[in-house]
C-alpha cells in the first residue's frame, strides 16, 4: 500500500477510529490492532512475503531471549546465529544475483567454462529497513543496553509497525518498545502535529519530488542531446526529487505514527543546508547514518584510532552504506565518492569539535554559503551515480555535462525547475529552527492564514497526484 494512495487514506481512517474509538482504553487489543493492520499494510505488496518477515521476527525474538539469559561463548553464538540468519535473507533476496553476476564475469575473464544461473525473484519491499531494525535489537540486547522483549506481539510490532515498515526511519528498540508498552492517551497537540507533517510530507513527495522527477527522468534519458546547463539542472532536479521523495515519505511516516501517539526519530534535517560532507551526513537519512555509526564505525574504533584505521573505518561505513542501498556498482561508487570527500575534509580541517548546524548557529556567514554550494555540487555529482542505470551511464552523463556546450536553447525548458526548487528552499530556510522540520512549525502563524496555506497545499497535491505519472517512493526498493 502506497502512502500516496486513496487506499492508504481509507486504511488510515479505519485504523485510527478502531484504535481510538472502538478499542479505547484496551491497550492489549490496540497493540494487536496495530500489528494486524501492519500485516495487512505489508500484504498489499506481495502477500506471501509476510512469511519471510515472520520467520525473521521469530528467530530474533528467541535469539534476544537466549542472548539475555546466556553467558560467555554461548551468548556470542546466539548473536552470530541471529545476525547470520537475518542477513542471509537479505543476501539471498538482495545480493545473490549481484554476487552471481560478478562471479560469472570473473569466470568469463579467467576463461573458466561455467556460469551460475541468477534467480528470478522480486525483492521484498523494505527488506533492508526491517533487517537493520532487527539487527539493532539483537546487538543492543547483546551489549546489555536493552532488555529482551518478552511480549511477542510488542516485539513483532517493533519490527512491523506499519508507518515505518517499508522505508524507515530505522528505529531503535530503546526508542520504540517503551512507547508500545505505555498505554496510549490521545494527545491533541501531537496528533495535530502529525496531520501537518503528513500534509507537508505529501507536498514534498507529490509536488516537489514528482515534478522534479519529470526533469530528472528527461535529463537522464536524453543526456546525449542536452546542453551542460540542462544536464546540471537535471541532476539537481534529481537531488531534490530524492530529497522530496524520501524525506516526504519520512514525514508521512512520522506524522502517521503521531496519530497513534508514537514518536519516531527525525530522519532528515535540512540536508541541503549542510556546509560540508560530514555535516550532510548528520542531516541526511539520520536513522541509517547513526545506525552505521553506532554498530560499525564506533565498534571499529571510529575517529579515535587515527591514521590508516580511521580511513578504513570511513571507507567501511560508506561502502556498506552504498551496498545497503542496492546490489549495484553505482551505489558502491556513490558511497566511495562520499568517503573520499569526507576524508579530504578531515585531512584539511581535522575532526575537531563539530560545527553547529545552520539553524543552531548564532550568525550565518558568507563562507557557509560557499561551503553549502560546494557540498551541494559534490552531493549532486554523487547522486548521478546513484540515479544512473550503470556506471558507464553515470560517467557518460557527467561527461556530457562538461563536454557539451554549456548553454543551449534547451535550457529554457529546464528553467521552470528553479520555480519549483527555489521557493521550496526558501520555505525550508525560514523554517530551519522548527524542531521537526514541518512547514510553518518554526514560527507562529494566525490559524486562518495557516488554513489557507494548507488548502493551497492540498489543491497542489491533488493537482500533482492526477496530472503526473507519480512515481513510487524511491526508497521502497531498498
Amino acid at each position, binding site marked *: 500500500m502506497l502512502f500516496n494512495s486513496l487506499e492508504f487514506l481509507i486504511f488510515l481512517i479505519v485504523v485510527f477510529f478502531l484504535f481510538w474509538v472502538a478499542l479505547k482504553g484496551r491497550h492489549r487489543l490496540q497493540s494487536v490492532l496495530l500489528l494486524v493492520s501492519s500485516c495487512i499494510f505489508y500484504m498489499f505488496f506481495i502477500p506471501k512475503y509476510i512469511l519471510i518477515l515472520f520467520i525473521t521476527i521469530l528467530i530474533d525474538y528467541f535469539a534476544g531471549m537466549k542472548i539475555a539469559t546466556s553467558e560467555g561463548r554461548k551468548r556470542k553464538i546466539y548473536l552470530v546465529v541471529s545476525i547470520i540468519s537475518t542477513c542471509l535473507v537479505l543476501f539471498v533476496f538482495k545480493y545473490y544475483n549481484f554476487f552471481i553476476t560478478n562471479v560469472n564475469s570473473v569466470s568469463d575473464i579467467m576463461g573458466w567454462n561455467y556460469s551460475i544461473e541468477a534467480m528470478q525473484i522480486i525483492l521484498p519491499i523494505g527488506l533492508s529497513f526491517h533487517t537493520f531494525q532487527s539487527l539493532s535489537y539483537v546487538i543492543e540486547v547483546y551489549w546489555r543496553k536493552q532488555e529482551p522483549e518478552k511480549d511477542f506481539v510488542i516485539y513483532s510490532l517493533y519490527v512491523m509497525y506499519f508507518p515505518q515498515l517499508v522505508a524507515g526511519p530505522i528505529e531503535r528498540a530503546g526508542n520504540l518498545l517503551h512507547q508500545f508498552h505505555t498505554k496510549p492517551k490521545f494527545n491533541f497537540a501531537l496528533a*495535530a502535529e502529525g496531520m501537518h507533517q503528513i500534509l507537508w510530507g505529501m507536498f514534498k513527495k507529490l509536488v516537489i519530488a514528482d515534478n522534479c522527477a519529470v526533469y530528472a527522468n528527461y535529463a537522464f534519458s536524453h543526456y546525449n542531446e542536452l546542453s551542460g546547463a540542462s544536464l546540471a539542472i537535471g541532476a539537481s532536479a534529481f537531488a531534490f526529487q530524492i530529497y522530496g521523495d524520501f524525506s516526504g515519505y519520512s514525514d508521512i511516516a512520522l506524522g502517521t505514527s503521531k496519530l497513534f501517539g508514537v514518536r519516531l526519530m527525525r530522519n532528515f534535517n535540512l540536508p541541503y543546508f549542510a556546509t560540508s560532507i560530514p555535516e550532510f551526513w548528520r542531516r541526511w537519512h539520520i536513522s541509517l547514518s547513526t545506525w552505521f555509526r553506532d554498530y560499525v564505525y564506533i565498534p571499529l574504533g571510529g575517529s579515535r584510532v587515527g591514521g590508516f584505521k580511521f580511513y578504513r573505518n570511513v571507507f567501511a561505513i560508506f561502502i556498506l552504506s552504498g551496498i545497503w542501498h542496492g546490489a549495484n556498482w553505482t551505489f558502491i561508487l556513490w558511497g566511495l565518492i562520499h568517503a573520499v570527500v569526507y576524508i579530504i575534509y578531515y585531512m584539511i580541517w581535522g575532526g575537531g569539535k563539530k560545527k553547529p548546524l545552520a539553524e543552531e548557529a548564532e550568525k550565518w556567514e558568507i563562507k557557509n554559503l560557499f561551503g553549502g554550494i560546494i557540498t551541494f555540487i559534490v552531493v549532486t555529482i554523487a547522486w548521478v551515480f546513484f540515479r544512473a542505470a550503470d556506471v558507464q551511464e553515470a560517467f557518460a552523463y557527467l561527461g556530457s555535462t562538461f563536454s557539451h556546450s554549456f548553454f543551449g536553447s534547451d535550457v529554457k525548458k529546464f528553467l*521552470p525547475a528553479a520555480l519549483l526548487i527555489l521557493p521550496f528552499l526558501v520555505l525550508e530556510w525560514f523554517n530551519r529552527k522548527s524542531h521537526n522540520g514541518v512547514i510553518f512549525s518554526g514560527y507562529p502563524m494566525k490559524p486562518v492564514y495557516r488554513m489557507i496555506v494548507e*488548502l493551497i497545499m492540498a489543491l497542489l497535491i491533488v*493537482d*500533482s497526484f*492526477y*496530472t503526473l505519472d507519480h512515481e513510487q517512493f524511491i526508497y521502497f526498493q531498498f
Partner: protein
Amino acid sequence: MNNSSTSSSELKLFLRKSLVRMIAFLAVAIAVFFIRLPREYYFSIPEKSSFSKITWNENRLNTIDNLDNTVVFVGSSICLNGINDSLLNTLDSTGTTYLNLGQSHTCFAITDVLLDNIVLDRKLHPKKVMLCFKGDAMASLIHSMYPVTASSQKILQSAGDYNTFLLPQILKRISWNVNYLTEKVKFDDRDHLKIFKSNYGFEPQRYRDSSEVEVIYQRLKVGSEANFRSIEQTTQGVQHGIKTKLFLTKVDYMENVKYQRTVFERSARMLDEHGIDYDIILYPNMISARMNKPHLMADYIKHTFKGIDYSKHDIIFMTDTAFTDARNYADMNHLNPTGAELLTRKVYEHIKQ
C-alpha cells in the same frame, strides 16, 4: 479518570478541527470542480499523449457543419485500428461519407461523452452511427481522459448510472482545473511524435510477425476462453451458485462493469430518442474467431441490453475464417492494416445491404 476524560476531549477537539478543515477543503474543491475552463484547454490535454485521437476528433468536429450524410464509427482502439474510413470513402460512390471517430482504450463512458458532444451539444445528426462493442469482455475502467472530455455535470450524473469510480473522476477534474494555473511552469516531456495527424480517422496498427501474434495468443488463450465460456453461460441463463453470484456482483459494482453497461445502453437510447440510426459492430478477435463462436457476443448483447429494439438495429459480426488467421492481426484484438482492410470491405458490404 481525569486522564481518560482529557484524552476524550482532546480526541473530540481533534476530530472537530479535522472536520472543519475537511469541510473547508471540500468547499474549495467543489468550487474548483465546477469552474468551466475553455473547451480548447481541456482538449489540448490529450494532444501529446497516446490519446491524441481525442483532440483530433474534437478538431475535426469543429470543422464539420453537418453529418447528415455521414456514417460515424465510434468506439475503442479496435474501432480506431479496424475501420479504414479512407477506404470506405473510396468504395462508396453514392455520396455517403464515412468518419472513424474511434479513440484508444476501451471505455463506453468516453464514447457516450463523444456521442453527447455530436448529438446534444453540436446538434449534428449522423446518417448512421456504428457502435463498437468490445468482443471478449466488458469494459470496466474509466478512460483516463474522461474527466477532461466530460463536463462537471456529466461526471456528477454518472453517479446515478452506478459509476463506482466517481471520486477519482471528480478529483481528476479538480486536478486538471488546478493544472490550468500551474501547467505553464511544468516541464513538457510529452511525446510530440505521438500526436495523431491524418486526414481521416483510421490509425493503421503496425505489422507484427504472425509468429509473435501466435505467442501472444497462446499466452492469453486459456484466460480468454474461460471468459467466453462464462459469457456463454450467462447468456444461456445458467443458474449460478451463491459464490459465483457474489463474485459477479463484485465484478459488477467494485469493478464498475454495471456502470459501463448502463452507459452503453444510455448511448443507444439517446440515439433512438434523436432518431439516429445505429448498428452495433462486434470487431473480430482471434479468440472468438478460433472458438468458432462469433455469434456469442451478439447473444450476450441481446440478453443484456433488453432496451434495444433489435428489429431496427443490427449486430454485425464476422464469420469469415480469415479472421482466425494471425497474419491479419497485430495482437489478439487489434487488426493490422491488412486485417483492417478485410474488415472494412465486409462492413461496407453490410452497409450497402
